[in-house]
């Protein structure tokens, strides 16, 4: 039990450090001007934008406080943030508040998200978003 707890703590600290480094890199360097960031493999192979294209630039804009800019780079990512925050809380409280989790993860909501992602994928290629 003790050994497991130590391992868990080490893992959590490592994950926090990695997340911190990751956020620092995305805040400090712009994916538009730096060659440090990989381009979307799906876009390069197919020539079609994927639902995630622009998310690196959007993350850079968000970390620098530019919400409107982030929305222009990837509207889906920015629109999903409030729901993702709610979902994360709900999954952490899943065993303690199962009804809250069931409400947040209602099948209709997930279906709506699925349709939204597919629509976003099609429309952004049609209109060049």
């Amino acid at each position, binding site marked *: 039990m003790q050994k497991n707890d130590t391992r868990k703590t080490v893992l959590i600290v490592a994950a926090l450090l990695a997340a911190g480094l990751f956020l620092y890199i995305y805040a400090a360097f712009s994916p538009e001007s730096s060659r440090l960031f990989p381009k979307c493999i799906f876009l390069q192979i197919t020539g079609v934008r994927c639902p995630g294209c622009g998310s690196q630039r959007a993350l850079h804009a968000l970390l620098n406080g530019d919400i409107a800019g982030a929305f222009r780079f990837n509207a889906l990512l920015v629109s999903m943030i409030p729901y*993702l925050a709610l979902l994360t809380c709900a999954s952490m409280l899943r065993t303690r508040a*199962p009804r809250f989790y069931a409400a947040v993860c209602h*099948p209709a909501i997930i279906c709506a998200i699925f349709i939204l992602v597919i629509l976003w994928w099609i429309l952004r290629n049609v209109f060049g978003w």
Partner: protein
Amino acid sequence: MSFCPNCGAQLPEGSTFCPNCGQKMTDQPANPVSAPAENPMPAATPAPAAPQPSTRPCPENYLAFAILTTVFCCVPFGVVGIVKAAQVSSKYSAGDYEGAVMASKDAKKWSQIALICGLVVVLIYIIFLVIAAIAA
């Protein structure tokens, strides 16, 4: 009859670990914990001594993981994860708990595949950058 406190699967008598998710039954092996035991539900719920399928919490659907891999990993596998997450919730609300647990595993698997693909692409890109830097 007892249930795994982690995934809710039915346990054979005297199990020391869950055959479904591998969770160890270290706490009170003589008196296995049923899923809703530590669950401060309103008084309307049935007694924890008789666990009903509907009182077990919905299995984790990994929806946040699926959405994030869809947005960041540039492969369509995250979308499969979203579909599987929908199946977890719909099977759970239809009372098909075992089906929901299966869908939960699939949801995790597809998001992990998407994540691994994304990481492999990043790794190849970094190797490519290093080779280009050495050549230049």
